[in-house]
C-alpha cells in the first residue's frame, strides 16, 4: 500500500499524509478484532478493500482534490472465513502480524514526512 509514495510524484507528501491516517485507522480496526478474538459470532473488520484502488487511481490521474476527498472506512471483512464453530472470523496470529506491519508502515510514513518537512525548512532557510 505504501509503495505509492516511493515515486517522485509531487502529490507524494499528500498521499503520505493520507496513508498515515489510513494506518492509524487500520490499527484501530485490528485492535477491535483482537479485543473480540473470543467473542462468539464476531466478524473481523478491516479497511474498505476499494480504498487502495481508488487511491492508486487518483494518484495516477494526479488529481489532488480526489486524493484529499478520499475517506478510508472500516467495513466488515466478507472474505474472511469462520475458523471456529462459533462463527468468529478472527485469527489472532494474522491480526498480530497485520498490526505489526501497520506500525512499521506508520513509522516509515512518519519518517518520510519528517524528511519532507526538513527539506522544506532547508529550502526556506537557504534564501
Amino acid at each position, binding site marked *: 500500500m505504501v509503495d505509492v509514495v516511493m515515486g517522485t510524484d509531487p502529490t507524494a507528501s499528500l498521499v503520505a499524509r493520507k496513508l498515515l491516517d489510513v494506518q492509524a485507522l487500520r490499527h*484501530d480496526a485490528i485492535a477491535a478484532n483482537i479485543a473480540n478474538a*473470543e*467473542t462468539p459470532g464476531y466478524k473481523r473488520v478491516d479497511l474498505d478493500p476499494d480504498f487502495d484502488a481508488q487511491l492508486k487511481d487518483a494518484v495516477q490521474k494526479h488529481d489532488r482534490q480526489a486524493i484529499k476527498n478520499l475517506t478510508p472506512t472500516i467495513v466488515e471483512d466478507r472474505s474472511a472465513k469462520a475458523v471456529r464453530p462459533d462463527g468468529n472470523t478472527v485469527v489472532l496470529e494474522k491480526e498480530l502480524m497485520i498490526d505489526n506491519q501497520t506500525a512499521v508502515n506508520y513509522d516509515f510514513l512518519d519518517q518520510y514526512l519528517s524528511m519532507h518537512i526538513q527539506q522544506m525548512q532547508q529550502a526556506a532557510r537557504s534564501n
Partner: protein
Amino acid sequence: MNIIPSLQTTGDALNAERIRMDVIAQNIANAQTTRDVNGKAYQRKVVSFEAVMNDATKAARGSGNGGGDNNESQANLKTVRVSGVTADTSPGERVYNPASPDADKTGYVEMPNVKMAQEMVDLITSSRAYEANLTVAKNGKAMADSALRMARDQ
C-alpha cells in the same frame, strides 16, 4: 481529544480477559467444594463475551458527519464486554464417601463439575488473548510516540 483511540477497545478487552481469568481461578479454587452457598456442590462458572459499540462508534452512528475527525470511518468498530457469568448446570461426578458431612443417605457425595484440564486450557487461552491485546497497546503507543516525535524534532 483522543491520541490513541484504540486504547479504549484494548483496555476493555484486557478488563474482560482479566474477569475471565478471575472466574477460572474461582473454578479451580472450588474444584473440591461440595457445599456452595446454596448447600449443593459447586457448579463451574462460565464467562461469556459480547461485542458492543464503543464511544467513537456511537458518535459516528449518531451524529453522522459532525464532531471530530475520522468519525464516519469508525462506524464499524466494536469493543468487547462481559455479557454475563453463568453457572454450568451439567451434573458433577458422584463419589462414594459416607464419611463426608455432605454425603446423601446412600453415602454418595456429588462433586463439583469442574474439570481441571479444561480450566487450564481456558486459562492459557485467556492469558494468550491478554498478551495479544498488550501487544496492540504497545504498537498503538509506539505509533502515537512517533507521531509526536515528528512534531518535536522540527
